[in-house]
């Protein structure tokens, strides 16, 4: 009977745990983790727009509709759609906020921007039905917090220098553009490796 006993036995049917997902029409099912990432992205846009509203002293109410963009483009989180609407939002800050000044509302706006960027990137790294573990979410939250912390000294420095006329504008231009050039050189991407 040795061979017979070696045959795998049928195990009783296991009731799988309930997995909650959401369908939008006939589209794919979305996990709660992905919906959470989209909500975080929408929250980031909302914080950004609120900061812009306070920094600019108000704007057309149509701008508030941009809060829905992360939800509308959640299926294309890995595409250029988030780039387009964040370019629009930054352009909005550039045009709506008063030129030449500095607003401390830029700090929460930076928080909203980086939170939305991280949430969209995390969403794009997993299929719609995929879930994130608490460990992954925590790691991304830590990274986001560290990136946001970098904005604080810049904001402090900008806040301090905004009230002063040091006459260093040409030097600041050169240094700023040099920094951008160095940054771009560092971030240049290698050509993709040839497939075998």
């Amino acid at each position: 009977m040795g061979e017979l006993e070696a045959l795998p036995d049928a195990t009783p049917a296991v009731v799988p745990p309930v997995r909650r997902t959401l369908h939008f029409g006939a589209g794919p099912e979305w996990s709660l983790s992905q919906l959470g990432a989209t909500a975080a992205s929408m929250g980031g846009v909302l914080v950004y727009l609120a900061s812009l509203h306070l920094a600019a002293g108000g704007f057309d109410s149509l701008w508030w509709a941009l809060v829905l963009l992360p939800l509308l483009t959640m299926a294309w989180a890995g595409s250029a759609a988030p780039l387009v609407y964040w370019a629009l939002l930054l352009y909005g800050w550039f045009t709506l906020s008063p030129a030449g000044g500095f607003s401390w509302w830029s700090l929460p706006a930076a928080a909203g921007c980086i939170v939305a960027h991280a949430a969209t990137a995390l969403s794009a790294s997993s299929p719609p039905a995929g879930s994130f573990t608490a460990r992954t979410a925590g790691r991304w939250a830590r990274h986001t917090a560290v990136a946001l912390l970098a904005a604080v000294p810049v904001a402090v420095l900008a806040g301090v220098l905004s009230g002063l006329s040091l006459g260093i504008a040409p030097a600041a231009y050169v240094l700023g553009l040099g920094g951008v050039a160095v940054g771009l050189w560092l971030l240049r991407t290698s050509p993709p490796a040839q497939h075998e």
Partner: protein
Amino acid sequence: MPAWRPRQVVTRRLGGWEPTAAHQRAVILAAAGAIAAVLGRRADLLVIVTPLVVAAVWGHLARPRTEVTGTARLGDTTLREGAATGLRVTTEPALTDVHGVVTVAQAPWVERKPSSGIVELEDGVAALGLRSTRWGRRRVGTVSIALASTWGAFRTGPVDLPDLESATLPVPAAFDASAPTPHPRGIVGLNRSNRPGSGSEFNTIRPFHPGDRLRRIHWPISMRTGALHVTSTFTDEDAHLFLLVDCFSDLGPREGIDGRPTSLDVTVRAAGAISEHFLRSNDRLTLRTVGAAEVPVLGVGSGTNHLRRVLDTLAAISPATERRDTGEQAVRGIDPMALCLVLSPLIDPTMVGLAHRLAARGMTVVVVDTFPEHLVTDPGNVYQSLAWRMRLLSRDAEVHSLRQRGVPVVPWRGPGSLDLVLRDIARRASAPRMARR
């Protein structure tokens, strides 16, 4: 706890790392924002894009530079219906701070746990559960791996690993038969013969002969009579069973082990149950299929190894893949003393014709009707049930013609399905019969 012993391993290199849309977004927004801030003297804009600059630089500096290899290991390649096994996916080297996702595509009759088939890699390892819900040979859903580096800046994959294959053996239905198998003539089985000899069935008590085993001595009789007496037995014999499986028809919805069976489910599970019962009794068994392509030919055999081969053969059946099969090959070279069991829902006329042909050869034939009853009693589909009842009415004429020829047709009911008919056959074999002199 038993050690993890993978039965099938596949591996593939995931390829190079390429920048993602998220990284390009961070770079473009950071660069454009910084330039606009410097040129437009907008310090607040510089503050806003500073975290994006950090994300872009961090993502670039933390870019993985090693090529990763993905490996999937399947725990068991042979399962029983309803049984589960594990799938373990690993990446080498296991990179830190990399977000990895393993996806197992949906495949028929394979349940994934988690049901989405998507699992995150933790320290380069992910584990999923797979449960097979129907007999047959099939591929487990394609396993694909995708890795994203810090900040989702660079990505490799998703890359599909080579397919993993598994065989699911039918779970034999419950079956038992207390009636003897007709025409035993071997020497190793459990069927009683009419010849005295070494066996387990009591025959008589007789005087001791030289050569008798001492353990056979019946001491009470020997003491009473003053002469040695021994217990004699009938010899045990094995019979030959020939199973003919109808693969033309697979009637009813395919719902797997947890749902209602199709006709082929009933047929295959009944064949497994009958094989298990008779092979445990050391009888010889031949299995042939009709109507299925690429089913390996199984010779005569006995014992538990042969049972494994029978179940493997049953798992290889694909219904109605050889419509032109007339069954000629299947019924060729059969032992004339074999008990022929034809398992069929009797919908395809070929099987009825084969049962007639076997009976015409003078063989002992029993047709086991494997038509699933739920097809005619399905309250959810009244018209389909009605259609099946009409089809069964027309089938009754064929069943009647078989009975007229002396071929019993018994519905499959599990344990005891064949008892009555086998006893009838044994009684018929021992009854006086007219013979031509």
